[in-house]
């Protein structure tokens, strides 16, 4: 056990700290949750451009592709410093954390040159077209078809739950290129221009009232063969590369946001009075807040542990498989506690810009997106504990 940083890591941290203190913009007025719209979107895109110009975007990417070749510990430091400085999130998150790394590992030299710089600068925003109406947890059963026609694939079908599609310029799309083989063996990954003729994006309105993900329809969309990522009919292994990145990265950024929410709730609990006393003095509320603090802290520690294991041994340890369950289920419990702390005002769209009610509703999706809790538990049971397969 040694959680102290080495001199190189300390230097990295200090350099980042100095840059952030000089460059973090004033927060965008208005609540979170509508990052993908209008002025807020432009604010975030401009922020990422600034981050990129200073060399802080995609720090985990190799230097030759515009990154810093940062190792995992530095990525964790990056996240912590980002939190400390209350810096806005990077808008092209799917490109930076999922699609870029996949292009780096299986893309052609031309693809790398063409796509990577604009992912870093947020000049081109990316989305990920995996899920379909009939292919959710069982993504490999997807039915969106691509048929070869000369030097193009012609794509027909529908994707759903596609975050950022309404602002995206490009999509990493999984399509079926061979319907006559077992489902995992007939899938191809394509890099699709979202401005192509035949692409229609229809925002889905969520229970929060916002529209941050979409249905995407493909009607005879022509995609050059040069835009196959990886090999034809080997798209499943490309997708796995992407999903591995998803598991490796999603835990890190999330702590930032959650800690801020907890700190804000602590502040509110001292301000709001009930029965003539601050809510923070209510013994039941204190127990609940302490429980939330404990759970969030254990998520932070498990995340650090998972990073350290990957950093030192280059393979993910079993602890990584519980991170998604930890954060998603924590967040649901936390937002409920927040409702109880805040009292009747919590339900008002006008209280704290409506962020509590938004978060409360938004967390319902946490145990569904990026692998449902049921799928996560299946993975733990079968791959980590070695129980027999259930399907």
């Amino acid at each position: 056990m040694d959680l102290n940083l080495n001199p190189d890591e300390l230097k990295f941290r200090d350099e980042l700290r100095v840059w952030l203190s000089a460059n973090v913009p004033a927060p965008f007025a208005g609540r979170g949750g509508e990052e993908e719209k209008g002025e807020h979107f432009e604010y975030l895109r401009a922020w990422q451009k600034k981050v990129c110009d200073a060399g802080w975007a995609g720090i985990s990417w190799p230097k030759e592709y515009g990154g810093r070749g940062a190792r995992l510990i530095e990525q964790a430091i990056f996240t912590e410093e980002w939190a400390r400085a209350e810096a806005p999130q990077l808008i092209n998150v799917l490109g930076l954390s999922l699609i870029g790394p996949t292009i780096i590992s299986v893309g052609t030299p031309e693809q790398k040159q063409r796509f990577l710089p604009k992912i870093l600068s947020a000049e081109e925003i990316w989305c990920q077209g995996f899920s379909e109406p009939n292919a959710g947890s069982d993504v490999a059963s997807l039915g969106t078809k691509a048929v070869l026609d000369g030097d193009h694939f012609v794509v027909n079908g529908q994707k759903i739950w596609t975050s950022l599609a309404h602002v995206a310029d490009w999509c990493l799309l999984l399509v079926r290129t061979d319907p006559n083989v077992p489902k995992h063996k007939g899938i191809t990954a394509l890099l699709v221009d979202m401005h192509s003729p035949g692409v229609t994006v229809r925002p889905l309105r969520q229970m929060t009232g916002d529209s941050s993900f979409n249905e995407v329809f493909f009607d005879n969309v022509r995609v050059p063969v040069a835009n196959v990522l990886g090999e034809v009919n080997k798209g499943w292994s490309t997708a796995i590369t992407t999903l591995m990145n998803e598991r490796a990265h999603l835990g890190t950024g999330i702590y930032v946001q959650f800690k801020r929410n907890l700190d804000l709730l602590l502040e509110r609990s001292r301000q709001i009075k009930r029965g003539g006393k601050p809510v923070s003095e209510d013994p039941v509320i204190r127990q609940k807040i302490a429980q939330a603090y404990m759970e969030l802290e254990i998520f932070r520690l498990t995340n650090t542990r998972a990073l350290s294991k990957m950093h030192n041994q280059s393979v993910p340890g079993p602890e990584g498989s519980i991170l998604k369950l930890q954060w998603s289920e924590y967040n649901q419990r936390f937002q409920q506690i927040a409702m109880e702390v805040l009292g009747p005002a919590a339900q008002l769209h006008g209280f704290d810009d409506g962020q509590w009610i938004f978060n409360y509703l938004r967390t319902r999706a946490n145990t569904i997106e990026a692998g449902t809790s049921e799928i996560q538990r299946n993975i733990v049971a079968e791959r980590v504990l070695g129980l027999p397969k259930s399907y």
Partner: protein
Amino acid sequence: MDFDLSKPQKLLQQSAREFFARACPPEKVRELMATGTAFDDALWRDMADQGWTGLIIPEEYGGLGLSLVDLIAVVEEMGRACLPGPFISTLWAASLIARAGSEGQRKQYLEPISMGEMKATVALLEESADWDLDAVSMRADKDGKSYRLRGRKEFVNDAAVADLIVVVARSGEDLVLLPVESGAAGLTITETPAIDATRKLYSLEFEDVEVPESSALAFTTRIREAVEEATETAMVALCAEMLGGMEWTLATTVEYARTRQQFDKPIGAYQAVQHQCADMFLMTESARSAIYYAAWAMSEKDPLAGLAGAVAKAYCSDAAREVGNRGVQVHGGIGFTWEHNLQLYYKRAKSSEILFGDAGYHRNAIARKVIDEVE
């Protein structure tokens, strides 16, 4: 950065695992729980030969002088074996003596503890059963050059086997720490049979037990902090022991789910059973994150170590019980029997949940630190 046991720590852990698998199999646990003290002198001496009774005691007092992280690597294995006896109690007392004792007292007590020649415990709780030091009210009145202890201590672990009992009492407004030897005149030790027969509890009655003033552990004026720190040390070790118990329960349950067949399939192929096991894994690994960090923070004297300790005990208290609940459920009827070893771990989890304060107690401690102490 390395959030894991080091290579030497893993080797130490492996040797401890092999040692306890050999020296303390379940039959041994059952044999000892049926005795009056749950203590086996030969086993204790073997542990002392390995250096474990003095693992974190400085070398100058005959210990190995290792860190708290080294210690928990070994204690985790004690938990996996459901080791009976006064290890945690002795550790608690030794940690207290190390902090509050004079040089002479440290030599007097820590050397024999390291050598395995002395077992010890701490008498803290009273009828109020409150872990808060403010609740200590037993009198230790000054009478010339002596203190006189009058009153009762409750829930004292391993008192019948302890050669030394460190009594936390009150003289005027001040806390005093008085070492009392097991045969002291006026001391009556009565077993209070409880859920966990592998770590027995006692009620202690003090009728004018005389302790010379010079025997008091009063090398520091910060008695309260000394008790708190020593308790945190023993508590994080207890958490590691709970972790070992959780690991045993998880491994045993997974193995059962792999082999037990119903409706022509192993029950572990059903998601309802798989998800119970996945939750047990989640709780076990979450506990590990909290415990390893707390032990490291304490060994580094991190200012937030106390908070890390409270987080670890709050989490482990609920998790160890819940892992046991799921384990029994997956086993079905056999898991509810006296014959199955699950019951040993299930009961240990409950007694450990209570020892040093349960989840509610430690959530209060967390709340004081994160809600009330604003920078």
